[in-house]
């Protein structure tokens, strides 16, 4: 017994102090600076999120799964998922399809600043203002319909507000700049020497795009798709103001909001909010999973 104590005492000077050992693993005074931010996010994001999960499982009446049962048995509620996907997926795809060729053109421009600044406008103006502007612009007497009638494409004005297309247009206007600027930053990150090498070896523009750029861009494009999809999927103000909030554009965020703050059923509201997060997560995971089939690696040319 006393031998072991003595042994322990003899070993102690050989072991560095706790502070030194922690510092060697990266924990010291500077690491503690991470705490304010971490505590804030844990308290304001993780805790409310877990609270929401528990809240959604303790309904006002019935079994623990009552909120989820109600959501998936009431067509007025579960149809919001398809309504939201039906808006968000086509818009996100269209935005990406437009963003890629335009980013490829803009990359060759020397003065991109004016164009990119113009395109940042709708992001900073936000969805509410774009919705308000589009209500007049796309309305039956708005400039859009008037121009189409003037150049003879139409005889009677198209109905573009208070339905699916109004929301579609607003998501296009706020979503395209986002997709474009992200795509542009990925496209300009590819070393032009790779394209020059392909052109020297006689690859046509189409072959250079499909065989060189596309494989290098797939990781970036899938991230862009996910981020743009997250934005489109969360559509809320424009679906109310520009769409038909009781009909075709009754998106899932409207259902969540009205359950929580109009019916005062925060338990059901949390449940719908969590279903919303889960559906979005599924789409994001599917896209990122598809990405695994493509090339991953450096987009910069290397010498030797």
């Amino acid at each position, binding site marked *: 017994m006393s031998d072991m104590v003595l042994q322990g005492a003899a070993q102690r000077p050989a072991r560095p102090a706790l502070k030194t050992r922690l510092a060697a693993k*990266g*924990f010291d005074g*500077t690491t503690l600076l*991470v705490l*304010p*931010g*971490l505590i*804030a*996010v844990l308290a*304001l*994001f993780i805790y409310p*999120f877990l609270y*929401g999960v528990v809240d959604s499982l303790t309904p006002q009446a019935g079994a623990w799964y009552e909120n989820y049962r109600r959501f998936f048995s009431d067509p007025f509620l579960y149809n919001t998922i398809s309504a939201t996907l039906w808006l968000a997926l086509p818009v996100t795809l269209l935005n990406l399809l*437009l963003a890629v060729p*335009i980013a490829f*053109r803009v990359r060759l421009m020397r003065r991109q*600043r004016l164009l990119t*600044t*113009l395109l*940042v*406008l*709708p992001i*900073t103006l*936000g969805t*509410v*203002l*774009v919705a*308000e*502007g*589009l*209500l*007049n*612009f796309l309305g039956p*007497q708005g*400039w859009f319909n008037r121009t189409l009638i003037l150049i003879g494409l139409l005889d009677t004005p198209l109905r573009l507000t208070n339905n699916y297309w109004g929301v579609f247009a607003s998501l296009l*206007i706020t979503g395209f700049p*986002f997709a474009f*600027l*992200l795509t*542009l*930053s990925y496209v300009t*990150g590819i070393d*032009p020497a790779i394209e020059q090498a392909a052109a020297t070896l006689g690859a046509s523009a189409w072959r250079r795009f499909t065989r060189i750029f596309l494989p290098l861009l797939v990781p970036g494009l899938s991230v862009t798709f996910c981020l743009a999809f*997250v934005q489109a*999927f*969360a559509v*809320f103000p424009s679906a*109310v*103001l520009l769409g038909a909030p009781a009909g075709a554009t009754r998106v899932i*965020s409207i259902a969540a*909001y009205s359950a*929580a*703050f109009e019916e005062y059923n*925060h338990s059901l*509201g949390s449940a719908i*909010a969590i279903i*919303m*997060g889960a559906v979005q997560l599924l789409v994001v995971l599917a896209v990122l999973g598809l990405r695994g089939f493509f090339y991953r690696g450096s987009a*910069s*040319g290397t010498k030797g």
Partner: protein
Amino acid sequence: MIRDRGLGSKLWRTAVWAVTLLFILNLLGVIATVVTNSLATRWLGTWLPVDFTTRWYFAAWREFQLTEVLLVTFQVVFLVTLLSGLIGITTAYALARRDFAGKRFVVLVFLLPLLVPPLTYGIPLATLLYQVGLGGSFWGVVIINLVPSIPFVVLVMIPFIEQIDPRVEAAARVFGAGTGSLFTRILLPLLLPGMLAALLLVLVRTIAMFELTFLVAGPTSQTLVVSLYYAVFASGVRASQSIDAMAVVYMVTTLFWLILALRFVNPTQIVARAKQSQPAH
């Protein structure tokens, strides 16, 4: 630079530019509609209004109590910017300088709020805030806006801090600088451009942040964008010119900060986090 000269590529180029032009024309059309309508006396069924007037701005200012709303907006926005700056930059400094067990997990925690739709965490958080008694209050609006702002500052600042050579700090230490003077004399001047960029972006984003503010804003804690939403929502009640006048006030507020922000940041940073500096070839 490679330029293709075939007819097909010429047509393709024209088509791409035509689509871009169409998009920009429509975008400017939307903005011009709002501005024109706010200045119109009557505008029904014609290309341009009958006559122009500025009286809607005075009407909107009174009707929507814009003095109070603007005051609240700026208080909220500056407080959110300040708090997320203080918290975010210290956190980003630790994450940029130290490698520790669980760092990947911490970074993931900061990424999540930017990847989840605002309403998914906004509804439970708003419920909690109402239970604590902060719902509808000024501080409730500030707190809910901090959720996306702090992670945003952290993620934008990490690459900026990583760019600063740690040997500069070590040299300052060798010459006897304390933590205080190290921060004010070395880090602050070097980080200032990055900090300005990050904070201005938070500012612009917070002014336009609708969903979260909407969930907790009460009658006295509405920001400009929430008031605008309510005005458009109840658009039968007020003259549309008056609503558009308020929309122009909102536009001017955001654009002022956007133009200021663009002096310090690359437009692509507004959507993505700052790209790490490219290695030299």
